[in-house]
């Protein structure tokens, strides 16, 4: 299982498509930096099919005022959670 | 990587050739067999037929790929052009002691190979 990390918003960048193309059915996806916009209910549709495997970084949501606006299907993790995700994965692949 | 910084000059007959800090020709178009001989002298190398054919392989490599090769691709290019006996690192080490890819590129008038330390 790989952890894929996306730091660009699906509203402005097609990097999310590359991450999705690279994902195996058990891989996880973590949204960080501007990527956390993808956790909004209006944008989360880009990540359809990732239920239970889609995460967003709390600190980046918080700093952008988006913490309370996340779609319910997204699991919010803090930096410690990020570390846990990294440890649980064989490797991490960054998409930027 | 090719550098344009002039560090010193190599004198060949009446002419001066700009060299970068590592002794590579700043302007690779200035290369000539005489320049190669003078550069080789600095390395304590007397160029023989076996040296020249390697320098030619290097110049052909650069003309085709726009880059000076690291050791492995140099060995491969030499093997293809001059045969497997010569396409061995020991042969290149004997002709261009130390770091053959770098020394031979310098004598061939190429920039320093990018992909080796």
């Amino acid at each position, binding site marked *: 299982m*790989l952890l894929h990390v996306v730091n660009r918003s699906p509203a402005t960048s097609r990097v999310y498509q*590359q991450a999705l193309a*690279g994902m195996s059915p058990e*891989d996880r996806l973590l949204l960080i930096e501007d990527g956390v916009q993808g956790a909004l209910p209006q944008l989360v549709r880009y990540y359809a099919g990732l239920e239970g495997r889609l995460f967003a970084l709390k600190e980046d949501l918080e700093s952008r005022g988006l913490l309370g606006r996340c779609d319910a299907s997204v699991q919010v993790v803090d930096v410690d959670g990020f570390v846990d995700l990294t440890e649980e994965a064989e490797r991490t692949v960054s998409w930027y | 990587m090719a550098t344009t910084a002039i560090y010193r000059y190599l004198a060949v007959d009446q002419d001066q050739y700009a060299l970068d800090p590592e002794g590579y020709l700043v302007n690779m178009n200035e290369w000539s067999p005489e320049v190669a001989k003078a550069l080789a002298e600095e390395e304590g190398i007397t160029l023989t037929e076996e040296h020249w054919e390697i320098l030619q392989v290097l110049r052909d490599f650069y003309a085709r790929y726009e880059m000076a090769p690291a*050791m492995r*691709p140099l060995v*491969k290019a030499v093997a293809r052009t001059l045969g497997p006996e010569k396409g061995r690192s020991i042969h290149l080490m004997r002709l261009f002691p130390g770091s053959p890819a770098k020394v031979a590129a310098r004598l061939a008038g190429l920039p320093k190979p*990018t*992909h080796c330390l």
Partner: protein
Amino acid sequence: MQEHHDDSDLLVILRHAPHGSSWLREGLDAALVAAAFGRRVSLLFMGEGVTALLRGQQLGPLGQKGTAATLEMLEMYDIETLLVEEQGLSRLGLSSDELMLEVECLSPSALARVLSGHRLVLTF
């Protein structure tokens, strides 16, 4: 599906077009350095990175070198596994027979398998 690229050490993913930025060149440099040190390297062209493989590339308008000559050099560094995202090609209306080198086209599921199969993945 062949498994030969699964045993290479390093997968370098190239996602940028030639001339527009230095990303492509930097990715190729990383691949060449690894290969020069004896690592087995595979390249995966994704997204607009597939345009790096188009035939007939030229110097930039100011005479800037492109990357086509470097791609032709890959075989001299024993980089022979060239993978291309099938969707990246079709999105641009391209097909693999328009490319300058022999490549293996990857369906979405094959692409994901390739990523899982490498010990080290670098994205450029």
